[in-house]
């Protein structure tokens, strides 16, 4: 067992975890933040993406013990201006259907926007390569990211 201390959505948390416990299982289990979803548990689909120290990470592949000392933000904690704009754009552009990929998609989309890569479709599509959406064909997701990038860049 390993003692860890993390910040989760701005709140400090300390606890003891099994070495094999994934960050996703910690988040969804003991932390009861079920907005993070597991689609494949082998690091391909991106549904479990959360922000770890400002960078999107696969929470299904990351051991919870490896997150010791990290600040983690899940969909439940994404409430900056950019996140709110993105939420509005996701709705306006019908960027979600079943909603299962959405939280991981939001984590990646926010990262794309923060890195200033949301200005052209080809770049957005390439950056989204690590997130699978089986419902939308990505059309609305790409449009939503473009929309926010255009809104927020002079």
């Amino acid at each position, binding site marked *: 067992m390993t003692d860890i201390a993390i910040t989760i959505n701005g709140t400090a948390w300390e606890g003891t975890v099994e070495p094999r416990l994934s960050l996703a299982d910690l988040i969804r289990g003991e932390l009861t933040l*079920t907005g993070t979803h597991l689609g*494949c548990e082998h690091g*391909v689909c991106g549904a479990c993406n959360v922000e770890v120290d400002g960078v999107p990470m696969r929470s299904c592949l990351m051991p919870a013990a490896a997150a010791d000392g990290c600040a983690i933000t899940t969909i439940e904690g994404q409430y900056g201006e950019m996140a709110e704009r993105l939420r509005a754009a996701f709705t306006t552009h019908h960027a979600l259907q079943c909603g*299962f990929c959405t939280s991981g998609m939001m984590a990646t989309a926010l990262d794309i926007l923060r890195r200033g890569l949301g200005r052209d479709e080809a770049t957005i599509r390439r950056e*989204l390569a690590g997130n*699978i959406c089986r419902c939308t064909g990505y059309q609305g997701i790409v449009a939503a990211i473009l929309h926010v990038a255009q809104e927020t860049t002079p």
Partner: protein
Amino acid sequence: MDSHHDSNLSNSSQVGQPFTRLEDRRHLAGQGGFVADLRLPGIRDVAFLRSSMAHARLGPIAVPADAPAGAVWTAEAFHGLVKPIRAVLDRPAYRPSDQPVMAEGTVRHVGEIVAAVLADNRALAEDLAERLEPAYDPLPAITDPEQALLPESAPLHPGWADNVYMTMGRTTGDFDAMVARADVHVTRHLRMERVAAMPLETRGCVARFDRGSGVLTLWIATQRPHLIRTMLAEQLTGIEERDIRVIAPDVGGGFGGKSNLYPEEILLAAMAMRLPHPVRWIEDRWEHMVSASHSRQHVQTITAHATKEGELLAVDVRFLVDGGAYAMRTSTPAVEANMASSVLPGPYKFQAYRFEATTVATNKTPVGPFRGVGRPAAVFAMERIMEETAAAIGMDPVEFRLRNMIQPEEHPFTTISGLVYDSGDYPSLLTKAAQSIRAPGKGDAPANIAIGIGFGCYTEQTAHGAQEWHRRGSPFVYGFEAARVRIDPSGGVLVSTGIQSHGQGLETSLAQIAGDVLGVSYDRVRVVHGDTELCPYGMGTVASRSLVMAGGAVEGACQRLAAKIRRIAAHNLDCAADDVLLAGGEAQGPGGSIPLDAVARIAYLELQKLPLDVEPALDILYCYRPPVETGAYSSGVHAAKVAVDLDSGHVKILDFVVAEDCGRVINPLIVDGQIAGGVAQGIGQALLEEFQYDDQGQPTKVTLADYLVPGAPELVNVRIIHQETLSPFTVHGAKGLGEGGAIGPPAAVANAVSDALRQFGVDVRRVPIRPEDLWEALRP
């Protein structure tokens, strides 16, 4: 004064609007509630041990000595508690297979359940499952549908003479005469490989038995809660349907894959009934790859007979489908070949049709429905042969198709396969799609790139009623959909319905329909679905039926409720009920108005203002059964422009146009989303997705790193052209459109690649189109 309320359509303000979805808020906040998100006190997890062999005799299962008592459940533990699954089809040629809920004696595919293990959490359950040692005595595996037909392939199921689930054929028209009249005879042998719905949320089930009430509650990621409940009552002993509650919470995509009755659901139910705590099973992706239903896998031979002037005279087709190890309930594996043979004519008319449809058993995961069912494969066969026949005649492929299409004025049109088309303008769709895709593109292609354009034209039977389900031999004749509409004492509208929405946005579309009739904004309407205790019986969301059928039910219930509201309002406004208009959240009379919440309060809590001949409360159940039950046919033309890299064989989609007609569009935002999403799955099937097995029956693609679903970089923005030909057979003139997007792409992309490579004598015979196949074919 006019009777302005005869139909809500004349003054509708919400139907047809691209309103944003009511579902979005919870998902964007991370507050969706999927089955894996459920927290119940005392819950324990189940992991399944699944067969590692494709075909073997199953001997005893060695359980470690330190396994806790009651942790391991083998088939014997379920004796007398559950019955094998038998998917029936009321057709003489059909032969059912019993699907064991847990394997006993024999395993017939990798992934079949061999034992269940119960532990405090999933990791511990998996730990123990891994330590179980079943004794397998391998048997030869059948891994290919053509192999299944060989005399040396022993029957997989007891009592079977061969490995055929079903074979049927028919010749319509004077086939020999048409063949004799034809100038050209073009044949292709085609393959469409095995794919799966592959929703991003895997399957899952939580079961809890309440000893006090005797009620068994199951939360299942399913598309059909009511039917699953009916079937569970048949499969389980010791409990009645009345005492089973099935809840489909937020479901993370289904696409047909979550419409089957699965063994896991029965096992979890049986376990919960014997345990003092709830049990949970959440499927992992490997399990999903080997045990959730697969689809398609056709071997096809098709011949077109045509005149040199371009008249299509006759089509001859043979479908052979690999149905996998067991017949899944309810669709059976025969659904794929049977439907393909009946929908093959598509938008075309010709004089004679001969088909043979055969479905065989193999040692692979069972086949069930996936978006399109039979139609992607039928359209692939038909449109490939249309393309090749046009080339053989030397005619433009669009001209050739236009020449043989059913004309709009011919509706209702009975196809040569016996389907009754209600309406549609197919030539117009093709013309629009062709103009759009053929518009000059940007730039010249480099020398090592070949550009091609291809089409896939289809009709899509949707929202068919009892007559059609009965004709197919379905044991459940899906004839109706119900809606219960309540207005509570404070004026809030609650719609409950037996369909299930798992991405289709039905909470929004149905609210728009209700809002129009009741004169309230759609966001004041809450739509509840997916709970057999809260919702009226319904068939669930399959077969592109939910909007039309549940929409008809919601419309009918709201119309009846509206009539009652008008009478209450008229009584209190001192006017005639016919003079009351429901709009803006009010009942408006010629001389004054009453807010809807005030009318509702009268109906429940101020009965002194309620006319004596009006029943109290505002609560109506209405069942919609369409007056014509042969279905409302959507139609579409998909057009693809591709670039083939002649050095690598890699295919890139440059442009994709969909010209479609789903009748009245209720919410354009949602309709476009359904189309784009379906097209993505269709492109996956055209270029990327396929399961493969080795000759031992071992699946070689069992992760999302091997089984490739399209990502954003592989796709383009689909350009959509709408055409609205209203169905005369449905309430709103709407037609279903959930599946259409996935139907056209394999044909359109295969035709585009064939068009690009015609100069090299290469044409596509198989989807997915693999770079290595094209590279091989293009080698000098």
